């Protein structure tokens, strides 16, 4: 080993020595061409710094000095496209899921006048023919100066708009496009229009459309993406904010029944030459409103055609004095308080002094002998006022509050009037005499229907509702059948006695409203003929409010129907004007819901003694 290792070392050394001169020579050549390493390094860094500083300067220019200019430049080259993803507005449905208000995808046809100006007359003729737009308006739009945007037609059904624009493009016209422009349609025109309301150009203007706008409208989304030649660039930059569609609103309205009620109501109001009227159909058990018809009404598809005053629900917004229908509430409370029964015998004088005034009946009479049932059947003001004096102070008001008077029903109709129930402080004997038969107290239609429904429902008042399930109004109020509560107002026995008395109203011999009978069924009801308070003078103006409220089948009620006509000019009263309408509507409802006649006999409680 000692011998071998020096040899090995010496063996390597000569080789290294041999290579060195060549390498040195090469290195010398290299140095002359590229300079020394530090120099090269420095030069490189300076170069990089130079380039980077250019980049930096450009960055500052782009982002710091004039960012908007470049952003608009980028957007205008059409590299990216932002499309609105319109939220679909929720439908308004009836109880069977049929649409009272529906949204369909429609398009607006827009033009770029810069491109359309050249062939404007031809294009205008083409569009006028295909889209049924006005030729001259279109021509003006197509030739506009200084604009790159003009409306040609709005809310055109999508299929038509696309077909027309494609046909125009094929025919060589440039500069037309379509955009989203959702259309709200009301397939049934005037059916429930006063409740449903309508949409303006930019938003809801009335009715449920307005009250539940937050729920119905949803939230529009948008999508931004890069396009090339009309097609989306795959893997290109894109952002999507998805649209949140509106939620459907389910009402308790029955479309067919609502339609029928409206037609009967119109015929009734026109026949009586009245100013206006309304009718309510309520499900006895659930308090659901199956129909709430108003006349005058309007076509929700064309609201501008009708005056503004015809477009809201007078039944809900306009307070009126209920008149004799109120006697049902007064006397059933009195029976519940144990002061009278349906057979209580009363001596009814020809007139009754009440403070400085005198109360009369609608028919002149001397002193007559009526039972309490007779007071209801003959609708005697004097009999009612006289019996109501049996109430201890404050108790009538408590009953009326229990029946829901003076308090909004909160079914979800905008601008509902709470009616007017005089406060405890205002209450006095004279006032109570008048309130007993329905004067000096005002109500709205649904309030009164729900009060009468209390009797039909065995003395338990169920909150009326117009919304199936539950929905939140724009004001944050939760309404609907899920929120409806019920409470007992009068005993079952009192309600039963009142029903028996109300059956006498439609009796042809002793009652005042035989025309309210429904063939085959036992009906309980009550007429109302009230003097009307004038809008300006605050006094009775010689006009009348006639009404009929009732339920059937009387022994197991299914529906409560309430019909009111304002200012009939044919001299009719509650029995002759509203009675027949009640009969038709009730008959239709019973038939539609397959309610068989119970086969019961109407009551024969004596009305006189």
């Amino acid at each position, binding site marked *: 080993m000692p011998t*071998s290792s020096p040899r090995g070392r010496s063996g390597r050394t000569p080789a290294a020595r041999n290579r060195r001169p060549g390498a040195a020579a090469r290195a010398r050549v290299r140095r002359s061409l590229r300079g020394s390493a530090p120099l090269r390094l420095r030069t490189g860094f300076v170069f990089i710094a130079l380039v980077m500083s250019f980049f930096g300067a450009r960055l500052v220019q782009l982002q710091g000095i004039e960012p908007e200019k470049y952003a608009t430049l980028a957007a205008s080259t059409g590299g990216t496209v932002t499309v609105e993803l319109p939220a679909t507005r929720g439908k308004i449905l009836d109880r069977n899921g049929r649409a009272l208000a529906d949204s*369909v995808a429609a398009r607006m046809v827009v033009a770029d006048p810069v491109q359309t100006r050249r062939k404007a007359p031809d294009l205008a003729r083409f569009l006028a023919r295909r889209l049924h737009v006005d030729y001259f308006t279109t021509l003006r739009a197509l030739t506009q100066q200084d604009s790159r945007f003009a409306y040609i037609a709005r809310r055109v059904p999508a*299929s038509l708009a696309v077909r027309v624009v494609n046909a125009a493009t094929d025919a060589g016209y440039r500069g037309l496009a379509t955009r989203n422009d959702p259309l709200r349609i009301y397939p049934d025109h005037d059916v429930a229009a006063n409740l449903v309301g309508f949409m303006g150009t930019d938003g809801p203007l009335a009715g449920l459309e307005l009250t539940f706008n937050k729920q119905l409208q949803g939230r529009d989304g948008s999508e931004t993406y890069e396009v090339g030649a009309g097609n989306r660039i795959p893997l290109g930059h894109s952002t999507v904010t998805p649209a949140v569609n509106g939620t459907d609103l389910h009402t308790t309205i029955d479309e067919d029944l609502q339609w029928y009620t409206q037609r009967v109501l119109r015929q009734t109001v*026109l026949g009586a030459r009245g100013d206006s009227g309304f009718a309510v159909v309520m499900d006895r058990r659930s308090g659901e409103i199956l129909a709430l018809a108003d006349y005058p009404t309007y076509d929700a598809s064309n609201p501008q055609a009708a005056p503004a005053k015809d477009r809201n629900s007078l039944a809900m917004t306009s307070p009126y004095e209920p008149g004799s229908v109120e006697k049902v509430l007064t006397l059933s409370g009195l029976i519940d308080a144990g002061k009278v029964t349906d057979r209580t015998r009363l001596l009814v004088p020809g007139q009754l002094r009440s403070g400085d005034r005198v109360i009369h009946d609608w028919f002149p009479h001397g002193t007559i002998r009526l039972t309490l049932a007779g007071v209801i059947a003959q609708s005697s003001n004097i009999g009612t006022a006289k019996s109501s004096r049996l109430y201890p102070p404050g108790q009538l008001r408590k009953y009326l509050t229990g029946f829901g008077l003076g308090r909004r029903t909160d079914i979800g109709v905008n601008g509902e009037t709470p009616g007017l129930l005089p406060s405890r402080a205002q209450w006095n004997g004279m006032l109570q005499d008048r309130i007993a038969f329905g004067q000096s107290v005002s109500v709205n239609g649904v309030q009164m229907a729900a009060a009468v429904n209390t009797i039909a429902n065995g003395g338990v008042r169920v909150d009326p509702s117009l919304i199936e399930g539950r929905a939140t109004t724009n004001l944050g109020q939760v309404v609907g059948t899920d929120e409806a509560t019920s409470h007992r107002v009068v005993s079952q026995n009192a309600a039963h006695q009142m029903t028996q008395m109300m059956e006498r109203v439609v009796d042809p011999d002793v009652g005042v409203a035989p025309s309210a009978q429904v063939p085959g069924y036992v009906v309980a009801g009550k007429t109302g003929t009230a003097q009307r308070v004038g809008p300006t003078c605050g006094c009775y103006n010689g006009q009348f409010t006639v009404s009929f409220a009732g339920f059937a089948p009387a022994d197991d009620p299914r529906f409560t129907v309430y019909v009111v006509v304002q200012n009939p000019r044919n001299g009719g009263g509650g029995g002759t004007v509203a009675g027949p309408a009640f009969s038709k509507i009730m008959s239709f409802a019973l038939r539609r819901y397959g309610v068989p006649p119970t086969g019961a006999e109407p009551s024969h409680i004596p009305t006189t003694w």
Partner: protein
Amino acid sequence: MSSTAPALRARVPRLAGAALERARLTVVPKRTRRRTSPVPFLLVISMLAVGGIVGLLLFNTSMQQASFAVTDLQRQADALQAQRQSLQMQLDKLRDPQSIALKAQRMGMVLPDSPAVLDLRTGKVLGDPVPATRLDPLRLLAPPPTKPAELDPPAHVTVVHPPATRHDAGNSTRNTTGDTTGDTGRRSHDHSGRAGRNDHTSHTSNTGHSH
């Protein structure tokens, strides 16, 4: 190394002979560098590059195709959606209770007054059925709108007195209308300013217009 080798040799004397022979360093024969051709390498690299580029191109093309297909299908879906909605609108129009009632009435159908109900459990007929009649039909159409007063002036009547001819339009019109229409008509005329719409029925019959 020079110190460890003897120590190792001392510790393993038995292996000394053979190990020594094996451990002897020899000069490595100079490796002859065979210069291989660069062609296969370049071929592989260029194939990779070309393959990559072509693959990328194909991928891109297929993506584009898919994008076209998406745009196309989207358009088709929009068109079908629009078609569905217009059909739905037609259906709604046909299902509108008003149009059904109008058709039914045109066919001569009437609303029943009092139908009978057959109870399937007992086989009994409930209610007292009455044949439907055409009396008192349901009025389905709204009354035509009344013309504004300017377009529907009261009839111009000239009263000719036997001795002398006199034109007194305002006065004589009122008189004549009052005479021909009776109490109801006069009342509706009195009210016409406030509630023109509602006195339509009487108005129509007065002036003999049929709208």
